[in-house]
């Protein structure tokens, strides 16, 4: 019950009129930016990061809580009303959602997505509140060798198990790790990979990296392949659901939540797997499985709930271990660091009020989102018709502004363009973004832990293996690498991380 009291305290500090206003602004901005075609949640958070520069940490976290869930929801609106999904997690939503919209049931598709997101987000956030403190207490005692192993585990999962090409995944990871190396070595103060450029000594601001790769890279890539014939946007009225829609939706919402949360909380990265599994599960369980592929509401309700539950689950490793597992989490972690707040096992103990306020604001933001989105859906749908030249010009404008505002230096904007070029190349060559951005963030943390562990063992490599937990995690890594390969030999490629499925077969 301790958790409940703390959460209520969090509500008490989040529910001031001013903070509520911040949360509402965050939800509106997040949805606004998330709905815009071509902008996913990670890019939305990265683009809106500079807005928080003048704010207190608490207020900026509240703003971000709103932006995060708003951006997630905005993405699903886009994929339902246009027939191409913006990010991989929305692929499943797009399949049935767009079919529903074409049959004139856009309103119901948006409603089941919104309400499913709300339910999944609320349950997910509550689970975060109940799991994180315990995990953080355990995590405080995790030694450097095990921490190193866990970080390696999450990078391997993201790189090798998700995504279609392992080679490209590892290339993305290596690029990210190289970017993470730039700057002064933390313990000896020597410059690495700066090429003598003084502005690089402090390392590369992660805001600049994220905005460059997500915003500039994406805008340039789209500019190179801009669809000249506009997509048709399906008009939508005020979302509502009939009694039948409700009865077909509530079970998929709950099942989607149950699938999504653990996948978000494990360092398995992202919502792709749970949304896919949820879709398959709903198709199997539905009494009208013939409707799947032609706009079945279960196929929107389940994956959308899984998507949002995993978006909530991601806060468990982020807050308890300081380990981001999605691109958006990486950007959030960077945002926290600009305030000198380092998420990790000690954050729960050092600044509990901050964490609980954040969790409370996530719940509030989720509620506001439902209240705002259902009535405003027709308005959001209009955003999809925004003329593309002005839309992408606007993205380039705000990206440049964001990078410039970090230090008011033109050098940062030049650096932004360099990372924009990297982002373009990465898209051209089909290299996944997630390992890259996680490499930038986790690389330096990994090096610190590795050196800590090896310092204790006086340089002997056994220092990395002298904890039972570390050895256990290395075994998991081995399994994660071997099992999918074996499975794909047996029956075609299956992009599943180590799940109980591997024990079954």
């Amino acid at each position, binding site marked *: 019950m301790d958790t409940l009291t703390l959460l209520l305290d969090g509500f008490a500090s989040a529910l001031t009129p001013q903070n509520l206003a911040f949360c509402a602004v965050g939800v509106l901005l997040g949805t606004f930016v998330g709905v815009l*075609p*071509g902008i996913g949640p990670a890019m939305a958070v990265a683009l809106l990061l500079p807005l928080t*520069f*003048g704010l207190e940490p608490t207020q900026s976290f509240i703003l971000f809580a709103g932006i995060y869930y708003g951006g997630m929801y905005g993405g699903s609106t886009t994929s339902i009303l246009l027939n*191409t999904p*913006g990010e991989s997690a929305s692929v499943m939503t797009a399949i049935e959602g767009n079919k529903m919209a074409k049959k004139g049931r856009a309103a119901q598709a948006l409603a089941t997505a919104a309400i499913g997101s709300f339910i999944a987000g609320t349950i997910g956030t509550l689970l975060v509140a109940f799991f994180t403190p315990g995990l953080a207490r355990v995590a405080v005692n995790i030694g450097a060798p095990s921490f190193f192993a866990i970080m390696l585990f999450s990078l391997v999962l993201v790189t090798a198990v998700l995504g*279609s090409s392992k*080679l490209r995944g*590892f290339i993305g990871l*290596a*690029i990210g*790790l*190289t970017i993470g*190396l730039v700057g002064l*070595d933390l*313990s*000896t103060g*020597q410059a*690495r*990979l700066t090429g003598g450029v003084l502005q690089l000594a402090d390392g590369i601001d992660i805001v600049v990296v994220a905005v460059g790769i997500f915003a*500039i890279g994406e805008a*340039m*890539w*789209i*500019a*190179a*392949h*801009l*669809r*000249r014939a506009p*997509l048709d946007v399906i008009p939508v009225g005020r979302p509502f659901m009939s009694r039948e829609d409700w009865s077909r939706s509530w079970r998929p919402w709950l099942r989607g939540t149950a699938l999504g949360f653990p996948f978000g909380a494990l360092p398995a990265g992202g919502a792709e797997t749970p949304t896919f599994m949820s879709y398959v599960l709903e198709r199997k369980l539905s009494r009208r499985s013939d409707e799947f592929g032609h706009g079945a509401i279960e196929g929107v309700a389940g994956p959308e709930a899984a998507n949002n539950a995993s978006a909530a689950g991601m806060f468990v490793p982020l807050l308890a271990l300081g380990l981001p597992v999605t691109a958006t989490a990486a950007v959030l972690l960077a945002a926290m660091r600009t305030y000198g707040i380092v998420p990790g096992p000690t954050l729960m103990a050092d600044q509990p009020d901050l964490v609980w306020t954040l969790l409370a604001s996530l719940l509030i933001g989720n509620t506001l989102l439902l209240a705002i989105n259902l009535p405003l859906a027709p308005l959001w749908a209009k955003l999809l018709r925004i*003329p*593309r*030249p*002005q839309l*992408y*010009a*606007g993205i*380039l*404008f705000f990206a*440049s*502004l964001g990078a*410039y*505002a970090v230090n008011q230096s*033109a050098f940062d904007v*030049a650096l932004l*363009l360099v990372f*924009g070029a990297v982002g*373009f*190349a990465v*898209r*051209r*060559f*089909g290299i996944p973004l997630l390992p890259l951005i996680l490499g930038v963030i986790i*690389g330096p943390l990994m090096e610190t832990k*590795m*050196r800590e562990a090896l*310092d204790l063992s*006086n*340089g002997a490599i056994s220092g990395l293996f002298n904890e039972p937990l570390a050895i256990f995690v290395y075994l998991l890594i081995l399994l994660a690498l071997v099992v999918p390969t074996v499975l794909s030999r047996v029956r075609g490629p299956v992009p599943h991380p180590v799940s109980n499925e591997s024990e079954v077969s």
Partner: protein
Amino acid sequence: MADTAAPRTEPVEVDRAQYGLAAVLALVGLWTIIDARGLNVGFGDPIGPRVFPYVVGASMIVLAVLLAVATARGDVAQGEEGEDVDLTSPADWVTVGKLAGILVLNVLLVNVLGWAVTGGLLFAGCAWALGSRTLVRDLVVGVVMAAATWYFFYVGLDVPLAPGILDGVL
């Protein structure tokens, strides 16, 4: 590791640009290792700042070689898809070049002219490069956005962006 991604956009032939990527990656890996060689390992520091860059740089070179091999075997990159992306048409380098030029111009001029001016030009210029033909309207919108964001950062967030030639006017 042989990828069998369906080459929908490019004709069935070796993706030569991937050799270029492999070469760049190998050079970056090499530079990472050379750079790390120049670092001093302090007394009583068994690991030092070199090991991690060595590992990263060496992996990069290995990956570059693997990529080159995969390319020679006919591996083709599958470009990223998106709502407004049409991969069936070849890349439009003219537009990309114009945009890059405008962005670089902004970098060079932002401290001289100030954000309120270059921001407006940036927006209008990018919209023009992307095919907008309402230049006057774009300019008005751009200047209003640039001035508004300048005031927002200055008044709202206490972040003074460069005023440039409009110093004293704003």
